[in-house]
Each structure stands twice: as C-alpha cells, then as structure tokens.
C-alpha cells in the first residue's frame, strides 16, 4: 500500500481489493510512525477520518462511486473544516474552531473524501519554508535537515512522504508550486477565481488561490476536479464551466507551443536546476512540442510588485485578529490595551509584512508604492497575455534552487523572498501554473519544472505535465524514510 498513488488506490477501491477504512487506517498509522520526525500535521482528525471512511465505504456498498470516494487527503491549516481547529500557523488563532466548512471542504465531503488532518503552514501563509509556523518546523522528506518549502510545506511533506494521497494548500506567490518542487511532487495553482476562497483564511485576497498537491499529475487533477467550480459566496469566483480534466490527460502534446522565457534563466539560478529544466524542455520537444523563445519583459518587477501588493492586502486582512470575537485574548488595562497585548501574538514575519503593508498604503505613499504596483501588475499581466498569443504553455524552473537547509535563510527575509521569484508572476497575472518533478540535483534533492498556462487553461498545462511525467517517470522515485516501530 505504501506506494499506491491516489488513482491506484481508487482503482483498488473500485475492484473491492481494499476499503476506505483500511486506506485511512494505513495512512493514520503512517502518520503516527513518521510525523514525529516530519512534523507535517498540526491536527490529526483521526476520529473524523475513520467516521468519514466508514461512511464512504457505506456509500460504495450502496453502489456509489466517484474519483475521491473514500480517499484520505490532508488540508492545509488555513482552510476551514467545521469543528476542527484552524490556526493558520499562528498563535493568534490558537484554539480557534471555525463553525463552518470552507467551500472546498464542502466539496471534498460531498465527494466522499476522508480528511486526515490539518497541515502545517507558515504563519498566515507568509513564507517559503514553513519555518514561520508558530508551532512546528516541518522537514523535507528527502532530507530531514532541509525545509519542504512553503508556505504549504505541511501538505507537501505529507503527500511526498505518503501520509496523504493528496492535499490542499494555498498559493499566494508560489506557496504550492515551490514546496511541490522542493518535495518532488506535483503542485497545481489554478487560475484565480477557478476555486472559491470561501472559508480560507485570507493572506492577500487578490492573489490567494486554493491549490493542490498530488504525487502524480492525475492525482493532483482528481483533487482539482473535485474542488473547482463557481461559488456565489465568493464574488471573485468565476461562473464558468468546469471541463473534465481527467479526460484531458491524453499524453499527446504534439504541436503544443511551448515558450521559454529568457528572463527565467537568470544569474543566481542553481546550475543543476537550470540543467534539469532545460533537459525537461528538450524532452517536451522530443514529445512533439514546438519550443520557442519568448520574453516576459516585466519579470524583474514581479518581486517588488508582489511585496507591495501582498503586504498591503495582508495589513487589512489581519487587522481583525484582536481577540474581541474569537481566538485568544490577553487581558490588558483597558479595551485598547487588551487588543495591543493580544496582537503581540503575531510572529515576526507577519508583523514585518503588516508594517510594510500599512506603510505602502499610507497617505502620501499610496501613489508611489501601492498605486504604482497596481499599474506594474497590469503590465505583468499584459506580458503573459502577449506571450499566450504565441504559445500555449510557458516552461521554466519552479524554484531557483533545491531545498535549502532549515535555518539557512530564516534571518534573511530578502533571500527568503527570492525563493518565489519564478512563481510570483503567475499570481500577479491571470494565469495558472503547476510544478512537476523533473529530476534531482547531486545531493539527491528534487527539482521542479514549472508549466504556466493562460487564464483557465489548466487542462493544457496538466496534459503537458502528464505527457512529461509518463515519459520520464520521476514520480516513481520516492523518499526513503525509516518507519519507526
């Protein structure tokens, strides 16, 4: 069972070779065995999981079937599950139990998926290593001294180490694609608005998007299919038809136009990463794709634009955590003092971004910073629209490096911010993107290939990734982990 993918597990369920209860119990056992070392889960919902598994088995016995019926998955601890703590990796939400399910959780429950627990995240999803979690430090399954990436590092590690068949994360600037790359799995960041944000703790509202991990493209696709769709409660949710993505995984990419942006092969990129990604692009060509150079001229502005817009929105989004209505409250001399003391529960990176965001929105600075950032964001968007007139897919590295060591960048925020330099543009534009494993460096650490598609063209990048995956088989390599008895 250890090496079953989600789709293989589903086939086994369909053939009656296993039950959801057995799969769930196996996952829970594995979590107990491994997660002391890996620290990917903040909450394990074992009781809920076994109940849901029994219910799924019952549904199957009644003749129901579905791509996720009885499949155990993990949820990033920033996505609300009714009755289960939702901390967003922050002390300021310690003990907070939402009385509602996020839209995506509702969809998963309807599909009969089993929820194993809530996974670790950088506080309020602010980070690229999951080290900013106020609770635990999640390890990379390929090297326990290294970070899994972030902010959805808990989900990435859980999927990579097979402590879940797939997992939900959120991707605001690369928070699913970058950890997918660092953990050697597939991570999809759909188009903004493809999936409802209802019930997902907001970091930067115009950039946040529920995203997902799978060990294979098909696994990731299954989770995407189940969670995509219009939700009238999210006014930014797109009321568009959702195609059958699994049916689109043909593996045929002959004639696919793949653009390679010069701006993404810059100085500072790890040589081994560049080599692996260029080899992957050559493989796409071998599979029938047409490779052509393209330019995304405003790429170099993506990082500064992102670090103006995201903190600005975050500074407003996080102002509500005052201990008045929910979450911990640290009593002070009076009402205002109480709020001040309570807000000291925010961690340093969160405080840094709140201050940055407050500053760039201030009177006298708005035009110079936030206002200008919005204008440049439009130019970045336009870059992609121009590119997608010539190509169907853009191929580039997901992350400039492989997994770095725990603590290595913790005190160097700017260096940490560079971890997302290749992923941010997707969030700033109206594109979608994914990361698919494309090899290993000399230390045995995974490397990811990023494929970017035009608005709502997830099917195109998923099929390209699928063709590449089937042709290379990197996904069959899994980290060696010692299961403790």
């Amino acid at each position, binding site marked *: 069972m250890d090496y079953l993918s989600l789709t293989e597990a589903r086939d086994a369920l369909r053939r009656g070779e296993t039950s959801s209860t057995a799969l769930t119990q196996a996952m829970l056992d594995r979590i107990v065995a491994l997660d002391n070392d890996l620290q990917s889960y903040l909450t394990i919902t074992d009781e809920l999981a076994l109940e849901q598994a029994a219910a799924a088995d019952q549904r199957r016995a009644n003749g129901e079937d579905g791509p996720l019926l009885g499949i155990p998955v993990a949820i990033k601890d920033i*996505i609300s599950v009714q009755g289960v703590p939702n901390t967003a990796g922050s002390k300021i939400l310690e003990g907070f139990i939402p009385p509602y399910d996020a839209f995506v959780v509702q969809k998963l429950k309807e599909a009969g998926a089993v929820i194993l627990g809530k996974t670790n995240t950088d506080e309020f999803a602010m980070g690229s290593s999951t080290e900013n979690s106020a609770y635990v430090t999640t390890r990379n399954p390929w090297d326990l001294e290294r970070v899994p990436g972030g902010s959805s590092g808990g989900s990435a590690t859980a999927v990579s180490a097979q402590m879940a068949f797939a997992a939900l994360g959120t991707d605001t600037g690369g928070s699913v694609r970058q950890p997918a790359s660092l953990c050697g799995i597939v991570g999809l960041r759909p188009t903004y608005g493809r999936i409802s944000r209802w019930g997902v703790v907001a970091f930067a509202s115009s950039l946040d998007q529920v995203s997902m991990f799978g060990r294979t493209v098909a696994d990731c696709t299954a989770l995407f299919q189940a969670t995509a769709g219009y939700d009238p409660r999210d006014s*930014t949710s797109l009321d568009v038809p959702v195609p059958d993505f699994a049916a689109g995984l043909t593996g045929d990419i002959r004639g696919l136009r793949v653009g390679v942006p010069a701006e993404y092969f810059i100085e500072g990129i790890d040589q081994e990463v560049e080599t692996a990604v260029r080899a992957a692009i050559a493989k796409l060509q071998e599979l029938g794709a047409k490779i052509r150079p393209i330019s995304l001229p405003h790429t170099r502005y993506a990082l500064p634009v992102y670090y103006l817009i995201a903190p600005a929105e975050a500074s407003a989004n996080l102002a509500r955590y005052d201990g008045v209505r929910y979450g911990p409250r640290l*009593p002070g001399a009076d009402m205002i003092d109480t709020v001040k003391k309570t807000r000291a529960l925010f961690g340093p990176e969160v405080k840094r971004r709140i201050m940055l965001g407050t500053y760039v929105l201030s009177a006298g600075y708005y035009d110079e910073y936030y206002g200008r950032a919005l204008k440049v964001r439009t130019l970045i968007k336009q870059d992609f629209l121009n590119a997608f007139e010539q190509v169907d897919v853009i191929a580039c590295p997901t992350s400039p490096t492989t997994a770095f060591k725990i603590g290595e960048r913790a005190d160097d925020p700017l260096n940490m911010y560079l971890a997302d330099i290749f992923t941010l543009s997707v969030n700033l534009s109206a594109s979608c993107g994914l990361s698919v494993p494309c090899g290993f460096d000399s230390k045995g650490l995974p490397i990811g290939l990023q494929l970017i598609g035009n608005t709502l063209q997830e099917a195109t990048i998923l099929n390209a990734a699928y063709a590449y995956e089937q042709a290379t088989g990197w996904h069959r390599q899994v980290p060696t982990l010692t299961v403790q008895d």
Partner: protein
Amino acid sequence: MIDTMTQYEPIIGLEIHAELMTNSKMFCSCQVVDSVQAEPNTAVCPVCLGMPGMLPVINRRAVEYAMRVALALNCAVQQHNIFARKNYFYPDLPKAYQLTQYELPIGLRGWLDIELEDGSTKRIRVRRVHMEEDTGKLTHLDRTAVAAEEGTLVDYNRSGVPLLEIVSEPDIHSGEEARAYAMKIRQILRYLGVNAGDLEKGVFRVEPNISIRPIGTTAFGKRTELKNLNSFKSLADGTAFEIARQTEVLNSGGQVVQETRGWHDTKRITFSQRSKEEAEDYRYFPEPDLPPLAISDAWIAAVKAALPELPDAKVQRYQADYGLSAYDARVLTEEKAVAEWFETAVSLSPSSPDPKTIANWIINNLFSLMNEHKQSIDAIRVTPAGLAELLELVERRAINNNTAKEVLAAMFTSGQSAPAIVQAQGLAQVSDEGAITAVIERTLDAHPDNVAAYLGGKERLIGFFVGQVMREMRGKADPAVVNRLLAAALAARK
C-alpha cells in the same frame, strides 16, 4: 478697546448617514433588525462578525435603494462602482475596515430644493451619495462594577447594515437651512421607502461641518464637525451655537480649531470631543474581495421608472389640480402616508365634496385627533372612505359642520361609520321650520331683556340667541335656517 466686529458668513455642509431598510445586510444574508429592540448579537453571522475566511457579497436590493436615492436627489448614477476598504481600528468594526465607496460612489452632482421660512426656496447641491456598511455598537459599563476587561460590551446586530452617506456641498448658511435640508432629505428617503428617518434610534444621522469666514472673502475657515445630534431641533440649535461660538472665538482674536465637537442636548452647547487619532489615515484601497459593480442602463431605467411621485411634484400637483394653497399642499405631503390617505379620500369623492374641503378636514380636524391620541395615519381607524362618507352627509345638509366634528371624533375612537353614529345618537340635522320656530319663540319669550336690548341696537346679541336655540336643539338645527327664522322673529317683535 474699540473694535468694529467683523461680519461673518457661515459655511455649512451636511453629511447624512441613513441606514437602508433592506431585509438583509449589505454583504451577508443576516436580517436587518431594530438595533434598539433586538437582543444583542442575535442577527449576526460569520461574515458580519469578520470571522476568518469570510467574504462579502453585495446586496443588490441595497444597491437599488441607493440608486433610488441618487436619482431622487438628481444625481448622475455612476455605472462603474467600486468598494474600498477604509482601514481603522475599533472593536465595533469586526473586520477592522469598513467597506465604503471611496473614489467611485454610486451618485454624483445632485441637488435638492429646500423651502425656507419666508416661503422662498433654495437649491442645495449634493456632492455625492455612496454606499457603505454600518458598524456594531459599544456599551461601556461602569468600570467600578466589573473587571476592566469586561468593561465594554459590543453588539454586532448593526454590523454590516447597509448605510447610505449623502454629502452636500457647503451651500448651507444657517442652522435653519441645515434643518430644512436634513428634513427634506429624510422626507424623500421615507417617500422612497428606504429609511425610517428615526434620529433617536440613529438610523438617520446628521453631521454638519461648520466654518465661518468674513463676508466677501472666498477662503474657507477652519471647520468643526458636529456630532450627537439626535433631533432636528438639536441640528438647528447646535449649528447656530457653533456659528456663534466660532464668531466669538474669531472676534476675541482666537483661532478656530479643526475638530469634532459634540452637542450636549441638555446644556445645549457644543464641546470638544477627544479626537480618535491625530489626522486619521484610513489607508483606503480597492476591496479585492469584490469585483467592480457594474450598473446597467437598463437597471437605472427600471429603478427610475419605479420611483414614486416625490413631495415637490405632489405639492405642485395638489396646487394645480386641487386648488390647494402651497401651505396646505406642503402639510399634506409632508408624510407620504398622509398624502396617500388624502388622495384616496379624494378619489372616493369624485366631485363633491371637493378636494379642498377634504384637505381642510384632514388638516383642521383629523390631525388634531391624531395628535390628541398620538396616532399616526397608518394606525387610525378612520378610513379615507369613512371621511368621504361623513363629508357627504354635511354636503347633503343631513348634519351640520359642528355635528360632523363630533361624529368624526366618534369615528376616530369607535371605528364606526358616520351614518351609524348619526343614527345611533340621533344627530341628524333638523331643518323643519315649524320645530325651529317653536324653539325660537320659546327662547325669545325667556329672555325679554335681551330681546329689548337687541331691538335697541345691540345687534351682536344675535349670537346669544343662536347659541340658545342651538343648545335647545342639541346642535342639530340647520344653522342657516336658524339664522333666517331668528332674524324674522326678532323683527316681528320690534
């Protein structure tokens, strides 16, 4: 010291906040409840409590209400609407930002004509009308009674209630004008069915910005913003007080401080309020959770077509079609319900009694009964049809005017019809000349001195005789017949 006092001109702009009477809140499906009567925190949900991951959805009915107001105030309705986050921290604001239309409001550049006390009208320009959401309410408890951290209670029932802000240009120059403008706005909102207009409950809040400048100059002076005005009288008096105070400050060589001042309703003075923050910076930015709201031409046209007839139009029509005086027309149209009551009564009496008579009866008699019993037009038991029926009895001389007043009072308390009351109480008018002559003769016989005095030239004694006769006949005699026969009888005794 001799000093010629400078003459100042007050410059006043009004900000009016009006809660919209929609069924549900601005961005969630919670019911809008009476925030004074409802149990605290019973009309709340995760959205209006600002819980993590909750998102706003625009209430289209609230937009429609806002559009009604914008159109009624002659604004240009904007088709591209954006909500912004107005960031400030206070525990009654769950998200720590208020969603409000900042750069792109729904209505721009409107105007409103107000009537001044001398009967003239004045046009006040409306700068903008924009949509936003209300906050919750804090109650500060006595610190000595409970522990400090429990010293403030918060009720979020009002949090997220749709709110309309109507901002005038600084075209107002006195407390009286401020009052007239605010009352006219309230009247229109009530006509549009979008606001109850209750100042005490805070569903209609008026805040004037007041400054003064030497007459003949153009630069604006430092202004103060006035709060806590819970009646129109407070608005007029507070504004007048503030004008006088600023005049005194400047005349004594001082400087007006730009600040928020409160109105003390019992002391009837304004006082400096602690400003929340020095020069507050709200860090507005477009709300990323809401795409721009597009308002189509068709939607605007539909709302416009469904607007009710507004007070000014009614006043003109009452004068033109019914021959009412401007004053009577204004009185009848002050409240839409009264105007509708009046119009129904008129429609039920196509020719006679004429609208003017109906108007007089409402203004002179029905209103005093309503005042006396403290009932609004919606609550009274007299129906427009009932009044029409009563006035027909008068018209047919079945009862006289004085009797009709008594009958109306009886209708008001009992809810019975005029004919039923007339019949039950035997109030039908007596026009039988024989019966009236008999009473007259008896009366004259009983008062020989007065008869002599009358015949001797004291003709105003006629009133005395009429009164005696009417009393004898319990008010039912036809006054015209009495007058005629009495004059004849007196002449006969000359």
